[in-house]
């Protein structure tokens, strides 16, 4: 059909093309594809679909190197969410996604809509969301702007998830100046379904109607996908109107209606209208089904008058879905939506002709051949070269850094670390999240991983997000490996077998060789770890251009790990359970100190090589842990990570406010390791276990070839916390450590009224019930 410029639309000029973020080469590709000058609408469509956010044009070739297969993987990358089978006819859908840029300029709505989007990705697979996790990165809480972002993001996540009724049960919050103006807000959702209810977002069946469902379309969020694909700058605040506004109430209705719709059998496909809205949902569904589609924008239910095709196609108004129904079942679809007070309008249909066509009534305003709109997007292979500065930081001899005078008392150092906001209790955060709704939560936030029972079975699901960006910054391959290994270790500590991951790759501008080097290496490290640990990647999200005038964030490939415990009786806590238990360290202590939280917190130094990560050892450690837990000889198991062994032991003792213990630990026989590496070094592959049968743990460890040491005894809470080492000892009243750990974040956040005031002006008027 003939496509003519729409009266009143701007004329296509090089300046307009540049404004849409297309390079001259990309624009030429578009002209070649069409065989003519694009219309303004077509330019808008392509600018969204070929944005980094939608197209993965810099990351795709490397993502293909990740392992994605296992017999239990039902759906790998390329769908709304990954899906694995967990037995008993059940499947688990899960996915992680970033909402960094919106949250940097509008923390409350940015985070809230991030939660909304990832929920929709999971329930459009046919799964009922049962848990949310969040992986958050902020600058130092010393800065008022950071406190404002932190408080706003947490409130946004809470208000949205709480209202929809999905428990937010885990994640991580890390603070480092590297994230000061560019926070990272990654939200993960986990859902459960019967395998038979799995549905994919693939348009099929010529003549089937395409239906827009849910909220009406407004002018909000236009070009959100493009905004997410550029560096943050001083002008970013002016792009606040590109941030969408969420309505969790409509989301809850949409969730119930969608699940009912999927079960009803009246539809063949369903997809969230997320980034790039109607454009990307319709084009992607058509490309997956290898069919043509035609859409009439005048049929779209809109919120405002006079919206152009360009605006309707690119709006990112929230809480909308695109559905392909079975022909003749339109009335039934509308009836289900009406029950939930939601609208459903037929806006187009699946056609045999291989085109992607958009009309405004009778006028064709955009038309692309076949699925080339999706497949013709360029793929880039940028240069990769390590930054000399970072290589020099890694090579620095951190053992030469002198101890501060206060460190003569190792208890001082331990308190410093326990009160570091990255290590300290995050109860201030998760007290604002409903963790108990849906009554599946066995282990909520604050442990190594969160654990949910799988109703109707004996099984339980463990979920965790993890990444140490400082490690990845200093040595990306090792950091990528550790991110996966640590997430797996966390899940195994709760008694679950690590099964599969989703990932959210937060990096800087890929056109800079030093950034692309980090990306390539980190993905390489992750691939190695996923391969060795048997945890394929089932999907995820790439967020590039996390840069501000101060530079790029730490490269942060966040891993969202899902694990399965065969029996709820195996679910194990991180904290000590009874006085008199023997404390056992699994894994090998080393003299490594590089890239540690100790150096960052106590010496303000980000340098040295991160600890080595031997994946074979990690695998054996996981097998050993699971065998010992299943044998019933493990009272508690806690991963040894940020802050090292001393911090891990202190956490085992007092992280649980309701049930505290102390510990007497003796490391005096350890030789050849400095005091601070022994106490605060972050050697990988280590787990602190408490047990009433140490000999049996030792036998299992020996059989698995994992080093094991009895290092102490769990004591009653009124005894001092004590670690002896060659040449001295760390002694502290337990209460003092608990206070450092539990009060750190509340005391910062309540001291400061600025954040609350700023928020009050921002947040909507309801907190809700």
């Amino acid at each position: 059909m003939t496509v003519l410029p729409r009266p009143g639309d701007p004329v296509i000029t090089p300046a307009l093309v540049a404004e849409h973020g297309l390079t001259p080469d990309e624009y030429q590709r578009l002209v070649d594809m069409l065989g003519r000058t694009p219309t303004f609408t077509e330019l808008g469509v392509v600018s969204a679909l070929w944005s980094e956010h939608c197209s993965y044009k810099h990351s795709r070739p490397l993502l293909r190197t990740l392992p994605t297969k296992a017999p239990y993987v039902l759906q790998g990358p390329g769908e709304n969410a990954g899906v694995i089978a967990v037995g008993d006819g059940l499947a688990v859908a899960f996915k992680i996604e970033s909402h960094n840029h919106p949250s940097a300029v509008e923390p409350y709505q940015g985070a809230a809509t991030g939660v909304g989007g990832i929920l929709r990705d999971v329930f459009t697979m046919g799964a009922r969301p049962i848990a949310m996790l969040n992986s958050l990165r902020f600058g130092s809480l010393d800065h008022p702007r950071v406190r404002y972002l932190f408080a706003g993001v947490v409130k946004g996540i809470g208000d949205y998830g709480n209202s929809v009724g999905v428990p937010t049960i885990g994640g991580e919050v890390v603070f480092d100046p590297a994230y000061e103006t560019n926070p990272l807000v990654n939200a993960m959702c986990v859902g459960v379904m019967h395998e038979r209810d799995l549905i994919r977002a693939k348009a099929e069946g010529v003549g089937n109607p395409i239906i827009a469902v849910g909220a009406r379309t407004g002018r909000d969020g236009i070009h959100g996908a493009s905004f997410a694909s550029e560096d943050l700058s001083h002008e970013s605040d002016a792009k606040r109107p590109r941030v969408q506004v969420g309505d969790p109430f409509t989301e809850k209705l949409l969730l119930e209606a969608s699940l009912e719709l999927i079960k009803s059998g009246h539809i063949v496909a369903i997809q969230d209208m997320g980034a790039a809205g109607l454009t990307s949902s319709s084009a992607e569904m058509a490309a997956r089904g290898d069919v043509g589609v035609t859409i009439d924008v005048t049929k779209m239910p809109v919120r405002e008058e006079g919206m152009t095709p360009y605006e309707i196609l690119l709006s990112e108004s929230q809480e909308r879905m695109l559905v392909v129904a079975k022909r003749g079942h339109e009335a039934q679809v509308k009836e289900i939506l009406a029950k939930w007070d939601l609208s459903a309008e037929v806006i187009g249909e699946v056609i045999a002709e291989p085109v992607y066509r958009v009309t405004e009534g009778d006028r064709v305003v955009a038309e692309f051949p076949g699925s080339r709109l999706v497949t013709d997007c360029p793929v880039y292979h940028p240069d990769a070269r390590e930054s000399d500065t970072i290589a020099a930081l890694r090579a620095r001899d951190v053992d030469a850094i002198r101890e501060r005078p206060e460190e003569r008392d190792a208890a001082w150092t331990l308190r410093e670390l326990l009160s570091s906001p990255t290590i300290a209790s995050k109860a201030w955060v998760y007290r604002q999240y409903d963790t108990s709704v849906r009554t599946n939560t066995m282990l909520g936030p604050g442990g190594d991983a969160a654990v949910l029972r799988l109703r109707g079975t004996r099984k339980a699901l463990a979920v965790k997000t993890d990444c140490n960006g400082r490690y990845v910054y200093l040595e990306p391959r090792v950091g990528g490996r550790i991110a996966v290994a640590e997430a797996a270790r966390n899940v195994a500590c709760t008694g679950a077998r690590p099964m599969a991951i989703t990932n959210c790759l937060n990096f800087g501008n890929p056109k800079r060789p030093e950034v692309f080097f980090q990306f390539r290496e980190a993905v390489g490290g992750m691939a190695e770890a996923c391969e060795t640990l048997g945890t394929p990647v089932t999907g995820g999200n790439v967020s590039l251009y996390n840069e501000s005038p101060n530079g790029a964030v730490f490269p942060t490939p966040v891993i969202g790990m899902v694990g399965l415990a065969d029996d709820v009786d195996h679910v194990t806590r991180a904290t000590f359970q009874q006085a008199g238990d023997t404390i056992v360290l699994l894994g090998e202590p080393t003299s490594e100190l590089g890239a540690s939280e100790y150096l960052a917190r106590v010496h303000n130094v980000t340098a040295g090589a991160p600890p080595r990560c031997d994946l074979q050892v990690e695998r054996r450690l996981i097998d050993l842990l699971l065998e010992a837990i299943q044998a019933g000889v493990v009272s508690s198991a806690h991963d040894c990570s940020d802050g090292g062994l001393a911090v891990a032991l202190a956490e085992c003792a007092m992280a649980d406010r309701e049930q505290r213990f102390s510990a007497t630990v003796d490391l005096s026989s350890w030789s050849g390791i400095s005091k601070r590496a022994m106490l605060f070094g972050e050697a990988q592959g280590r787990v602190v276990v408490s047990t009433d049968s140490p000999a049996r743990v030792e036998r299992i460890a020996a059989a698995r070839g994992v080093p094991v040491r009895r290092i102490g005894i769990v004591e009653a809470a009124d005894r001092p916390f004590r670690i002896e080492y060659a040449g001295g000892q760390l002694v502290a009243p337990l209460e003092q450590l608990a206070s450092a750990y539990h009060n750190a974040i509340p005391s910062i956040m309540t001291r400061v009224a600025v954040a609350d005031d700023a928020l009050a002006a921002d947040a909507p008027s309801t907190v809700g019930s």
Partner: protein
Amino acid sequence: MKFGVITFPGSNSDEDAFLAITDVLGQEGVKLWHKDHDLRGVDVVILPGGFSYGDYLRAGAIARFSPIMREVVAHADRGGPVVGICNGFQIACEAGLLPGALLRNASLQFVSELCRVRVETTETRFSNQYAPGQILRLPIAHGDGRYTADDATLDRLEQNGQVVFRYVNAKGETDPSADPNGSMRGIAGIVNERGNVLGLMPHPERAAEAIVGSADGVALFESLLAQVGV
């Protein structure tokens, strides 16, 4: 015994209540829809937790106008038992079934935790299976839970034994620091004068199995069963 759980648009603990009734207590559960005009012969009505109508305007303020609420009020007027949990407590107050109101938490933050409440009276049809003074662990999860009423109302509630649950610390004492939302006199749950309508902010239906942290909520429902000797 037949328990009806109402689903308002935005209810999110309706399923939790339904499963506690059916799976854990083995009683008959009926899912009631907000647009209906029929309680379908249930003995007990549960107004569940959640965010009915998004809590827009004010928590519970719109739900009270739902068609089914006319039937719920009539049921209560006949002396039929009603349990309002969290958002359901807010709806019951808005509907005039219970005195007082639930305001924004004193902290201005949503609060979610396993709190402690003390059973203040066992002389109600909702608490007769507890021991007097028993300390319960029940989850709370709300932004608007600060129970508020004028002094005369509060005095009357106390004198009539209408305060059923009060927030306490680990020693079982009332203590402002153990009151998670700033409720007046630490009130977590009350009954109406006639004793057939209970409203409480904590979630007994989410404390029905030890595997999810606490089973202390079960006796609340068992109290209703004991009442009729089921």
